[in-house]
């Protein structure tokens, strides 16, 4: 105890030694001496330093967002192409040959191209869009603004994080154009398909590029994650205690922790895979007989080991994707219900529980691999435990909405859509978490429906909610409301129409990853349904194009924001100027006096965090 007291005393004396962000406020000149990145107050920005190699967290966030959008369009387009194949396996589309060339001779997608499309769609959407595009964008944008910091702890590493992601993107993009095509063994890259170059055309150069790209991506997410953690812990403004942080920040904090602890395991797994591919090792290979070649010399490895290593990241990755969406939904629901978030501490607690459980459940993806059944039963138990914090969150969102004075802004619509999708997708997770049921459902369309609803589309909704809600802060303009509502209704209805029927297909045993189902008598009755799903998928994709047009049009031509705080929110980002420069606040960083959810308190509509607590104010 005495030690702690002593340390605090020291801390005050050495505060200016870049221990705190406060130093920057009072004496910018003096600080520049020990603050390696403190020059942002007085240097002339060129186009390059402002828009390209920017160290401003807001610009980096926009870079992440727009790169993510590029990948979302490409990944979405890929899904439209393979849905075309699934919906119309017999039809010929000459225009396909025009754009895909030898991958679609005579207007028919080849099986190799189909698998390449599916694999790239998965990799790109999971890692580039929903990891980098979602937490990269909003962690960068919101953390300094909402905790009250001038910038990230290390703006330079933050910039590097984006450029590693950019390089990873370029490498992944180039893998699409190599002669043998991109990797085509599924986004999980299980060996032997990924370990043996001769396994498929995509396992050659495409796989090498895939691995390089993913390794760069791991570096990017580590640099980002370390920065987010250090910023949230170290750079909070005066008065911003951990229990006064908006839930977005808590969610982004746990996301970063998950990434920092789980991505390295994937990295190790990839290094072993690279050795297996190029240096004759057999970490993942054993007893393989190739037609026409004979038995391979590799002995003693274990393909299950790769799956363990992959899913040790893979499962936390699901939460890396989902938690930022949860955090933003919590914030947006509270702001637009004009009510404090229900169960703030329970929300943090459930985020923490989810973050811990995320590391303990990875083998539930592997129930049918030959995993030890006893071990499997422990994984079932741990998996089903996740239902508890998830349910806490859902009920808290619903009770936040309950009797709220709800404003249905586009951001709010998407946040409510997120909750809806999270419930529908989460419930099927309880089915799949049971190892006995999973034997029937594994690798069917039921799984596809489950994870697309619960983490794919719902996180996408979280992302849209965030974009609609913070667009005025990002660009100083509003998005067009009418177009936004059209976008919302087509997307939510479409998402359910695409993925709901897939549950039935999966229960009927329709396996995933098949190129063409028309040759199976048992799946003949799904022809119409598949066609329906494909048609809706195309309509939903078109709606996303509508959103893109709205987005880019509004950046330049949207209605200008005139009020500093258009949503009447309490958090700190709305105390910055309309278009904050690098450093966010022109004067001092405001001090925080209360938690961010004082809505409708004592008859006041909202009380920003910067308002001091009144003497006669009630406690809640």
């Amino acid at each position, binding site marked *: 105890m005495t030690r*702690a007291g002593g*340390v*605090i005393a*020291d*801390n005050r004396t050495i505060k200016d*030694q*870049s*221990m*705190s962000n406060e130093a920057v406020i009072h004496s910018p000149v003096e600080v520049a001496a*020990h603050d390696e990145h403190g020059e942002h107050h007085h240097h002339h920005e060129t186009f390059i330093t402002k828009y390209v190699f920017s160290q401003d967290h807001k610009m980096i966030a926009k870079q992440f967002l727009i790169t993510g959008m590029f990948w979302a369009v490409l990944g979405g387009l890929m899904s439209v192409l393979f849905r075309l194949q699934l919906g119309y396996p017999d039809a010929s589309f000459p225009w396909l040959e025009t754009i895909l060339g030898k991958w679609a001779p005579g207007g028919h997608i080849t099986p190799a191209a189909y698998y390449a499309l599916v694999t790239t769609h998965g990799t790109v959407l999971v890692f580039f869009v929903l990891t980098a595009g979602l937490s990269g964008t909003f962690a960068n944008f919101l953390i300094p603004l909402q905790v*009250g910091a001038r910038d990230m*702890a*290390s703006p330079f590493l933050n910039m590097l994080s984006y450029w590693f992601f950019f390089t990873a993107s370029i490498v992944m993009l180039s893998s699409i154009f190599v002669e043998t095509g991109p990797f085509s063994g599924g986004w999980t890259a299980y060996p032997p398909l990924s370990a043996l170059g001769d396994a498929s055309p995509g396992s050659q150069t495409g796989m090498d590029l895939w691995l390089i790209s993913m390794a760069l991506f791991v570096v990017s997410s*580590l640099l980002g994650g*370390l920065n987010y*953690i*250090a910023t949230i*812990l*170290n*750079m*909070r*403004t*005066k*008065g*911003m*205690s*951990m229990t*006064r942080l908006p839930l977005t920040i808590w969610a982004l904090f746990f996301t970063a922790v998950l990434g*920092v*602890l*789980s991505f*390295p*395991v994937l*990295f*190790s797994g990839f*290094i*072993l895979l690279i*050795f297996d591919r190029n*240096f*004759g*090792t*057999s*970490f993942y290979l054993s007893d393989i007989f190739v037609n026409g070649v004979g038995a391979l010399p*590799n*002995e*003693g*490895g*274990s393909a299950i*080991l790769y799956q*363990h*290593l992959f899913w*040790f990241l893979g499962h936390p990755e699901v939460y890396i994707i989902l938690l930022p969406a949860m955090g933003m939904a919590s914030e947006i629901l509270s702001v637009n219900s004009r009510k404090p978030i229900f169960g*703030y501490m329970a929300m943090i607690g459930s985020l923490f529980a989810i973050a811990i459980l995320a590391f303990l459940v990875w083998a539930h993806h592997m129930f049918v691999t030959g995993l030890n059944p006893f071990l499997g039963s422990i994984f079932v138990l741990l998996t089903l435990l996740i239902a508890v914090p998830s349910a806490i969150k859902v009920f808290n969102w619903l009770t936040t909405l309950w009797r709220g004075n709800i404003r249905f802004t586009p951001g709010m619509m998407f946040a409510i859509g997120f909750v809806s999708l999270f419930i529908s997708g989460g419930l099927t997770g309880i089915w799949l978490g049971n190892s006995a049921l999973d034997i029937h459902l594994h690798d069917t369309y039921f799984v596809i429906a489950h994870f697309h609803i619960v983490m794919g589309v719902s996180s996408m909704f979280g992302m849209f909610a965030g974009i609609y809600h913070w667009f005025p802060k990002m660009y100083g303009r509003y998005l067009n409301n009418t177009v936004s509502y059209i976008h919302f209704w087509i997307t939510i209805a479409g998402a359910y129409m695409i993925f709901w029927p897939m549950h039935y297909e999966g229960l009927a045993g329709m396996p995933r990853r098949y190129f063409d189902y028309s040759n199976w008598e048992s799946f003949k009755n799904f022809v119409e349904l598949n066609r329906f799903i494909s048609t809706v998928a195309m309509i939903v994709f078109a709606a996303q194009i509508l959103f893109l047009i709205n987005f880019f049009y509004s950046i330049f031509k949207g209605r200008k924001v005139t009020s500093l705080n258009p949503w009447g929110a309490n958090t700190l980002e709305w105390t910055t100027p309309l278009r904050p420069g690098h450093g966010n606040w022109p004067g001092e960083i405001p*001090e*925080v006096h*209360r*938690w961010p959810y004082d809505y409708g308190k004592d008859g006041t509509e909202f009380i920003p965090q910067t308002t001091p*607590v009144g003497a006669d*104010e009630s406690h*809640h």
Partner: protein
Amino acid sequence: MSTTTTVTPTKLWSGGKSPFNVEYGKLMMWYFLMSDAFTFGAFLISYGTIRFSTNGWPNPNEVFRSFPFAPEGINAPLVFVSVMTFILIISSVTMVLAVHAGHNMDKKGVVRNLILTIIGGILFLSCQAWEWNHLHSEGAWWGHNPFLNHDGTASSTNFTNYFFTITGFHGFHVFSGVLINIIMLIMTLTDKFEKRGHYLMIEKAGLYWHFVDLVWVFVFTCFYLI
């Protein structure tokens, strides 16, 4: 809910300062090392997994039993690797002394101890290079395992695969640690830290270097002892 209770400014977590009383760089270094611990952990655990899923395994005492400049065929298990271990421990000690000297703004002490640490690192790398070379001359490499299992049955190549991958990855860390220390030395000699008023950079480099030593404790045990 404690959120509305007035927080006294002396509270560690109340914002406006680091709750841990450390600058962000040190915090990031710690969390980076945590994530690196998971990288090495994943390597060593997958090594264990493969060992557990294999019937036999070579005896390290029969594999690692040579010593540089000793006559061929010498049976000296554990000797060379203990020399390597002590080199790394001693270089870790000199690194702590360098950090300590940095706290006291003792430039001379920093320089002296950093040079000793760098020498230790280079010595360790040379030892590793010799050992790799020796094993290679015995026919061991990625994908090649000349050694037999304990019980005289044929061994899979995974013994050498893991040995070279993990010690290689560790060696790469030692190498980058040496590079970092050389940069620190140059920065010290050019009075960068004197001007800055503190030697906190040395502390971060020190953390990294000790981590390298820490990993060796595990690698040493997993590959040479058990």
